[in-house]
């Protein structure tokens, strides 16, 4: 057994569940296990240099305001509040690299790699399932690709990132992950869902 046990390891059993329609399951859900999740925080007067550092290290342009994400081969950078970012990355060593680059006068790095469970949901009914819990307008014109929201579903706080029109990545407080999974899959029963194997 690996030393790492992910929050949804037992729950996310591959298979097809719920309503059976002619078009097949409306969504596919899987556990998403990024290597690292880091919260990065700048100070008000270091924001510009902090963002410049992130841009060059991660090879992306930092979005101009909270609610947007930028994606590169190094990872996805989600802006979650003024001067606060969530980096989701599969790049080995990124934590050490950034911690080394950012000193306290510049900002802070908080490792949340274990603090969140990841779920990826994709499919034609993805937005229909999510709106059962999210009081957020998920219309593609209002919440375009690479929009980010921190919100709640079933009283559980989480971060939502739309990666394409019908795909969403969700980062959930780990302790609530199983409860969330139960609520999400329950909501998906109406459209039918498939559970796929976990991936990074």
């Amino acid at each position: 057994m690996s030393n790492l046990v992910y929050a949804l390891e037992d729950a996310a059993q591959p298979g097809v569940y719920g309503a059976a329609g002619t078009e097949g399951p409306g969504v596919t859900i899987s556990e998403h296990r990024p290597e690292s999740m880091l919260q990065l925080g700048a100070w008000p007067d270091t924001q510009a240099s902090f963002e410049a550092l992130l841009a060059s290290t991660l090879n992306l342009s930092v979005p101009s305001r909270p609610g947007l994400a930028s994606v590169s081969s190094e990872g996805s950078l989600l802006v979650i509040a003024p001067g606060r970012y969530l980096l989701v990355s599969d790049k080995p060593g990124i934590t050490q690299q950034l911690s080394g680059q950012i000193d306290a006068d510049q900002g802070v790095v908080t490792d949340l790699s274990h603090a969140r469970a990841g779920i990826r949901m994709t499919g034609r009914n993805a937005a229909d399932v999510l709106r059962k819990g999210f009081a957020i307008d998920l219309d593609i014109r209002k919440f375009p690709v690479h929009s980010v929201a921190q919100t709640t579903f079933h009283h559980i706080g989480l971060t939502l990132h739309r990666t394409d029109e019908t795909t969403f990545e969700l980062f959930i407080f780990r302790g609530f992950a199983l409860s969330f999974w139960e609520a999400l899959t329950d909501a998906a029963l109406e459209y039918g869902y498939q559970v796929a194997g976990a991936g990074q």
Partner: protein
Amino acid sequence: MRIPCPCCGERDLGEFTYGGDATISRPAMDETDLNLWNHFVYNRENPRGPHLEYWQHTGGCRAWFKLQRNVLTHEVGASELVGPWAAASPDDETTGQREIAE
């Protein structure tokens, strides 16, 4: 109710925690006059109309902000971030955000 978070835009009431009257000023840490402290902790104007109040977006970005809300009609006005980032959220950015999240 829909509460406008200066950072995330309009969200449902359920994502927020109410923080009470935002017009009360906290005495300085070294203040020794207990009357001032008592006033700060216990006394409220509790107006029947416009009310400036604190809210926290606990179910979202966790920002604390001030909101102008009429407690008789529940009509809300502008919200304004408080804290170190207050200055860094100029109006145009806030409006830009609202367009997206509405």
